[in-house]
């Protein structure tokens, strides 16, 4: 079972994780879920991920389109918009800053 702290941490950075995955190229629902699970986000439910995608789409960070699939009906692929890419860049900077700060904090012995 994923510890609560880890679970909350992952939830808090879900947006950035999704942006990061899509920053590497467009992806569809199941593939996104898998990529997140492989990265340790397997404790998150489909609804949370889907809700995040819906919100990002409504915010204009993500766009979607149907793409033909060789093994079935067309799939809905998500991709970053220019605003999404901008958000990703800013998120990367915030993340780096946060990691640096946390590293400093965690050096302190109790």
């Amino acid at each position, binding site marked *: 079972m994923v510890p609560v702290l880890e679970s909350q941490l992952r939830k808090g950075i879900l947006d950035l994780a999704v942006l990061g995955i899509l920053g590497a190229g467009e992806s*569809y*629902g*199941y593939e996104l879920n898998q990529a997140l699970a492989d990265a340790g986000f397997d404790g998150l*439910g*489909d*609804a*949370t*991920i*889907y*809700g*995040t*995608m*819906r*919100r990002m789409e*409504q915010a204009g960070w993500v766009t979607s389109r*149907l*793409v*033909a699939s060789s093994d*079935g*009906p*067309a*799939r*809905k692929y998500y991709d970053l918009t220019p605003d999404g890419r901008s958000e990703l860049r800013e998120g990367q900077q915030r993340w780096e800053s946060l990691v640096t700060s946390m590293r400093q904090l965690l050096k302190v012995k109790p």
Partner: protein
Amino acid sequence: MSDALQGPIVRPGVAEYAKRVGRYLGDQPKAVRDETVADLANRLAESGEKEFAVCIEKYGKPRAYAAELREGMDLGPTPPWWRRRGTAMPVFIAGALVAAVIAGVVVDRVRQLPDDFNPFTSGISTSGPPDRFDTIGSVLVVTPGSETVDGYFSFVLTNSSDVEVEVLSIEVPFMIWTDDGGIMVGGFPDVASESIAGFVARSDELWQERIALDPMGPDEFRLDPADPTHTAFESFSLAPGETYGVHLTGELASCPRLSESLGGGVGAIRATFTARGRQFDARVYDLSFDLSDCPITE
């Protein structure tokens, strides 16, 4: 001929699941809600889902899924039913009123039952209310799905005990039975539309059972009067044209014309429960209320 790409085929069970999730987005603009429901149905279908029961198994109950979805969408917690849209309000309210009447009658009858069958006096203890209900009230009438089924009514209301109640009234055989644990439940099996409604006096298990049966095919929930676990224990009737009290509460109470049309809170509602041995027919019909000044009417 269009060469537009076709999305996955959404089967009825999956569409129903998405629709039920959409009910908990009722505080959102209709366009957002409709788009989300349609998109969710496609997403589930794209993931290979075909059956409602499988969706329940994999994703949880629609309410639970919706709660997570809302969190992901930053929409805040699920609003109470009266803050949700998407229900035909006149039908909703009219049905709610009838349900209140029926519920009241049923409760009165239940209270008069022998102790062995009476959930109010038999000492049956349960661990809590059914899912989706904050408290167990007098009667909960539950329905698995549609807001309207074959022209009849299903709806949600808050009765005079401030208990959320879902109701489906249908013109089908009606039975009351107890389960093995002695917890009383009741139901309106609706074979034709493959749905069921019932009322719960005290149970935190019925909901699970109902979900497990849902969507209920005709063979899965047909009640057998000979089955000892399906014990009909009471009969009662509402005479057509007879006057029954209707206690308007909450936002319903702020509809003056509705109150007037009901005679200041008491209205003539034609409904019948015809006893037929251990089986009943339930009919609710000819509903006409003045809802024109009701602020919650859409």
